[in-house]
């Protein structure tokens, strides 16, 4: 049978579906947010420091890859810790994810006696199983109110660029 070539201009855009596009990269969309806001808290309940723009999956089978960076410092009056957690919000219904660590946190930080702080980066994959808008909110707290946790800065207010990138990974 003779082979023929079909030019790309002859292929309708809506004919190229995910099912036909196997072997390609599978990132469906990317949402990036950054913030220069600096926070500090002595709250023993989780308080929000970062609320990015929502990402809306195109399919319930999609996974969301979440990447985040920030700097942090913890000043303590004891051996207690500062904590970070991610709260997933789908249409106002919230749930903590990846929070099985100490004191229901994702990360726990011991005090830095030099007050210079740490850089913090994480990446995780989530399966929200929805086509509604999803927000991954970052929150922080301390073990006792005599402590202070600084986010996106060290104690001297230096630092100050945090960001989150969310990517839809198509099935």
């Amino acid at each position: 049978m003779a082979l023929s070539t079909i030019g790309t201009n002859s292929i309708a855009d809506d004919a190229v579906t995910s099912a036909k596009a196997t072997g390609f990269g599978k990132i469906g969309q990317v949402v990036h947010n950054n913030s220069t806001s600096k926070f500090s808290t002595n709250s023993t309940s989780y308080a929000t420091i970062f609320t990015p723009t929502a990402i809306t999956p195109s399919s319930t089978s999609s996974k969301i890859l979440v990447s985040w960076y920030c700097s942090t410092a913890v000043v303590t009056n004891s051996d207690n810790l500062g904590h970070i957690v991610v709260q997933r919000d789908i249409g106002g219904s919230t749930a903590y994810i990846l929070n099985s660590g100490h004191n229901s946190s994702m990360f726990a930080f011991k005090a830095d006696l030099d007050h210079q702080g740490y850089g913090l980066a994480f990446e995780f994959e989530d399966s929200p199983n929805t086509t509604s808008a999803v927000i991954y909110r970052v929150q922080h707290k301390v073990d006792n109110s005599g402590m202070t946790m600084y986010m996106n800065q060290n104690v001297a207010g230096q630092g100050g660029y945090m960001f989150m990138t969310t990517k839809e990974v198509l099935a």
Partner: protein
Amino acid sequence: MENMEKFWKSLRTLKADAVCNVEGDILTEDDFNNNIEWITGESGGSAITTKTCPHSEITWTKVKAEMDKL
């Protein structure tokens, strides 16, 4: 002492058990009124907050006076 260290020390001097989430430095009355979330409770692990200071012991004038001593 850094600005925020002064703020936190002053806050604890005025009311040791006051808890809040602060955005940026607190250097003016506008900062005090707009950039502090006062924690009044907890719901499902998250803080319940208000921008209105619920503590009569804590005002901008009193906080500034304490900060100026440091």
